């Protein structure tokens, strides 16, 4: 996986991708602003959301134990997984125990994070994504690039081509003469997936919230594919990060107001499913909850970084981020792109790899992400904190940066030296290279355009024209 700057450069050079991204992020961000403005108490809801999550995280052990007890009492089974490998093993064994070799899946960041589909495939179990965007990504042998709309980087013509070429090898082929109108494409997905829903014996999901007090799990969605996977199969397996728990039933009143408006800019998403264990007369007869750590407790131990665990995955921060808008989701090298990904991924995976060490720098620190966050995660604060961590771990680039700043301070403290330097720079303008030479400096200017120097220094221009 290349570091962020290399990955971003490819994206920035792709005009189709940039146009798709720009259209999408601007549309959602404008709609979101209107949806949020409808509620006069947004600031208070945001504050309450932050406080509920902080309280949960402070007593996470208590709430998880309470949740486990409630889920078990309601007929479910709770499993604990320290990491991705363990979670994948647990899910595989649970699917094997049913005797089935295929499962239908609700879009879930947690299962993407642990690479569940790939693991199941290697174990001979076919996992079908059923969210339309996830289907587009899966059929296109692609990777998701956005938390909420994973195929945001694809336009309708690309999607039609993927459906025409690939649907047939996964099941029901695309209808003859499929056009690229969204309605026809959605209908093709409906037909393709319905045969899978109707025969599915095992469903796999994540969850948006888990209520400790009652053992209730909550999934919010739009298409109904979630409802299909949660209610038609005989066995339901939910893989959920430990931070998704909230203490009480009442706490949902906050998040069910802030999540839809922040993510899809709707007053409420079309479908929300809530279930508590199993019932004889409705839905799956077996329910398994896999509680996933996979680096979360490491993030919890970081007093600045732990606020990232408040995240409810609304993706509002992606849609306002100038860096995400240009670089696209793939450049972040993780299932969590954008500003939240830039702070979550290095905490979950550590900063040993080049891509993870580069992520805290994938930001202009403009602060727009903090403004829109419905649980008030101070993303810029965590970015700076993680930069300190990366810098303290060494690397020659950072030493050179410090040296350059020291040299600049010396010049700026000496007006005569500065003036002389400026005259020299203006006079030799035509000779300036587009890239800086030398180790470190060359790397720096590989990813940044050097500013063009003016024909004369500003001070000279001012003297001539204004005095």
């Amino acid at each position, binding site marked *: 996986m290349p570091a962020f700057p290399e990955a971003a450069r490819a994206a920035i050079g792709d005009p189709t991708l940039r146009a798709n991204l720009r*259209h*999408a992020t601007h549309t959602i961000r404008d709609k979101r602003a209107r949806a949020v403005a409808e509620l*006069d108490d947004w600031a*208070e809801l945001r*504050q*309450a959301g932050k*406080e509920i999550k*902080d*309280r949960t*995280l*402070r007593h*996470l*052990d208590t709430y998880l*134990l309470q949740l486990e007890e409630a889920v078990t009492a309601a007929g479910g089974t709770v499993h604990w*997984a*320290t990491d991705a490998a363990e979670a994948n093993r647990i899910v595989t064994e649970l699917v094997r125990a049913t005797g089935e070799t295929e499962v239908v899946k609700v879009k879930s960041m947690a299962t993407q994070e642990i690479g569940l589909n790939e693991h199941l495939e290697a174990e001979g179990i076919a996992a079908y994504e*059923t*969210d*339309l965007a996830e289907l587009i990504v899966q059929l296109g042998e692609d990777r998701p690039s956005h938390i909420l709309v994973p*195929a945001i980087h694809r336009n*309708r013509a690309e999607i039609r081509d993927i459906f025409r070429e690939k649907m047939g090898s996964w099941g029901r082929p695309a209808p003859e003469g499929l056009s690229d109108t*969204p309605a026809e494409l*959605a209908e093709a*997905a*409906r037909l393709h997936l319905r045969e899978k*829903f*109707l*025969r599915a014996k095992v469903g796999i999901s994540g969850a948006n919230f888990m209520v400790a007090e*009652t053992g*209730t799990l909550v999934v919010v969605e*739009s*298409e*109904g*594919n979630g*409802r*299909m996977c949660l*209610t*038609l199969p005989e066995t339901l397996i939910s893989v959920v990060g430990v931070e998704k728990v909230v203490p009480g*039933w*009442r*706490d949902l*009143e906050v998040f*069910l*107001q802030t999540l839809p408006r922040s993510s*899809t800019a709707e*007053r*409420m998403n*079309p*479908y929300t*499913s*809530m*279930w508590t264990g199993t*019932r004889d007369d*409705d*839905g799956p007869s077996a329910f398994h909850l896999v509680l996933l*750590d996979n680096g979360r*407790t490491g993030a*919890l131990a970081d*007093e600045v970084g*732990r606020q990232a665990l408040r995240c409810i995955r609304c993706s509002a921060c992606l849609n306002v981020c100038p860096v995400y808008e240009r670089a696209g989701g793939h450049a972040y090298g993780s299932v969590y792109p954008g500003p939240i990904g830039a702070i979550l991924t290095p905490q979950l995976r550590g900063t040993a790899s080049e891509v993870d060490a580069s992520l805290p720098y994938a930001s202009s620190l403009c602060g727009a992400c903090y403004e829109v966050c419905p649980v008030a995660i101070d993303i810029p604060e965590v970015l700076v904190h993680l930069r300190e961590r990366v810098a303290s771990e060494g690397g020659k680039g950072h030493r050179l940066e410090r040296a350059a700043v020291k040299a600049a301070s010396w010049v700026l403290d000496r007006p005569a030296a500065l003036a002389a330097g400026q005259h020299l720079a203006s006079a030799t303008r035509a000779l300036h290279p587009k890239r800086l030479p030398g180790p470190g400096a060359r790397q720096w200017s590989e990813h940044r355009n050097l500013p063009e120097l003016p024909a004369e220094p500003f001070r000279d221009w001012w003297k001539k024209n204004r005095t």
Partner: protein
Amino acid sequence: MTSDSRARVLARIRAAVADAPEAPDVTRAYLPRHTADNPGGLLDLLHENLADYRAHVHRTPPDGVADLVARLLDERGARSVVVPPGLPEEWLAAAGAERRGDEPRLTPHELDGIDAVVTGCALAIAETGTIVLDGGLGQGRRALTLVPDLHVCVVRAPEQVVASVPEALPRLDPTRPLTWISGPSATSDIELDRVEGVHGPRTLEVILVTGP
């Protein structure tokens, strides 16, 4: 071993927050509702918000429900309809469509062959344009309102209408399977163009029953 993992995760959590300051109690300074306490205004708001998310909304006094249900099924070409246990018989009294009960339980394939479902609801939320089903009498299990392509839902006003999400939750029982529905199934995954009807019912008809 998962029991070892349980102990390990819990130990990691305890170590992680051992030195963390106590988190304050949650201040709930937000509003319990955003609209005035006025049943007529609430019904209008529910109507408007449901329609805004492409549900078709109708109003009728109680004695008009049967004719309206029959007309809606007819207009949508529904020749068969699932009848959840406990649905008031008079609601389907005028309907010509073939009625299918859910006892014994219909298989997903059988459900897929049925055109429509008629249900009541647990409550409706005006500010968000949401109908909540809890599997109670006249609603059936969750699959019934999911697989058929047309859902006709009857809401009794004003007693089943609440203003807001904070007013809805205390009236719901979390141990029941709950489905919150705000408009028909929809997707915006293709260039953010909203398309109704992906996997759930493509058409949602809501009947607001007013009067005695």
